[in-house]
């Protein structure tokens, strides 16, 4: 349960940065923190008490058949596979946002969100 509360705290820190900060780069950092919090939350849902990593390998290399990890005692591998996808998408989103910021800075030479008012009505 402590894992879930900690990851909710991370998500809230990221959302706070998105809501309050004025600097565009700080907003992107907030999005990135939120992304990590969500990934940790999904991984912590697959936790099993006393479980090990979902890699099954031999205990003794010369004695085939002896498993180091019991297949009934490993954590849920499905959330980890989903999070692997989510991490890659997060990298893509961050890179895209940073390149947009480079264009914005070259247009107005400013990083404050208040200076970009063209889309307001």
């Amino acid at each position: 349960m402590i894992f879930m509360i900690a990851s909710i705290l991370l998500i809230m820190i990221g959302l706070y940065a998105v809501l309050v900060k004025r600097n565009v780069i700080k907003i992107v950092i907030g999005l990135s923190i939120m992304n990590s919090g969500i990934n940790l939350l999904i991984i912590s849902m697959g936790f099993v008490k006393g479980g090990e990593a979902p890699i099954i390998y031999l205990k003794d290399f010369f004695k085939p058949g002896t498993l180091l990890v019991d297949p009934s005692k490993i954590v849920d591998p499905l959330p980890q596979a989903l999070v692997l996808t989510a991490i890659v998408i997060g990298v893509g989103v961050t890179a895209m946002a940073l390149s947009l910021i480079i264009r914005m800075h070259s247009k107005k030479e400013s990083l404050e969100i208040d200076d970009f008012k063209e889309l307001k009505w």
Partner: protein
Amino acid sequence: MRKITAIVFLMIISFYFILILGEITFGEKYEGVSEHYVEKGIQENRGANIVTSIVVNYRGFDTLGEVTVLFLTATGISFLLGSCKCKNPMKRIKGSFVLRAATETLFPVILLFGAYIFIHGHLTPGGGFQGGTVVASGFLLLLLSNRKYKVNHLPLTITESFAGISFVSIGILGLIFSKSFLANDIIPKGNWNELFSAGFIPLIYIAVGLKVGAELSGLLGDMFKTTEERK
């Protein structure tokens, strides 16, 4: 005032979050589809790393979409930054002596380590995406240390297209010679826990690793372009 409003808003959201998550049993044994992956994954795929066999085999189509998303990101960034007529020139600084000397020795080792990670993706923690990122970090070191260094985009594009085409054609081979797209029955699966095992999983992860490495290196090269080069 903004901060107080934001904090109240966040407290309401986190209250409902905790209320929902309190319903979920935590730390218990799972069942359903994950149980099938854990119990039958080794017999069906012969891959020691179950996460890899889920990502590449059971959810291989999803991974193809993920690679496509990354490709779209790289294309969008080169579209955004490729023709940027920026007003103030960005200057690249010469790296310090420690950085330059370390890069000269570390760069081949980093490339080798990245290749190790994506070749052994079905045996150890790691895989194509992680190995590709490690390869791109080697190029990042080169860009940071050497002021004159430019990423040559042509070989990167060729590598990327070749890797993408080989991923799709492995999938189509499964469609022709077996039951479905990306079916893991064409190549003999070999013995579990060896390097040449798990059917096409290492082949696909090598393709993914090369593709991710090439894409991220090209992306870094786009971001490091100075004003004169963009014109």
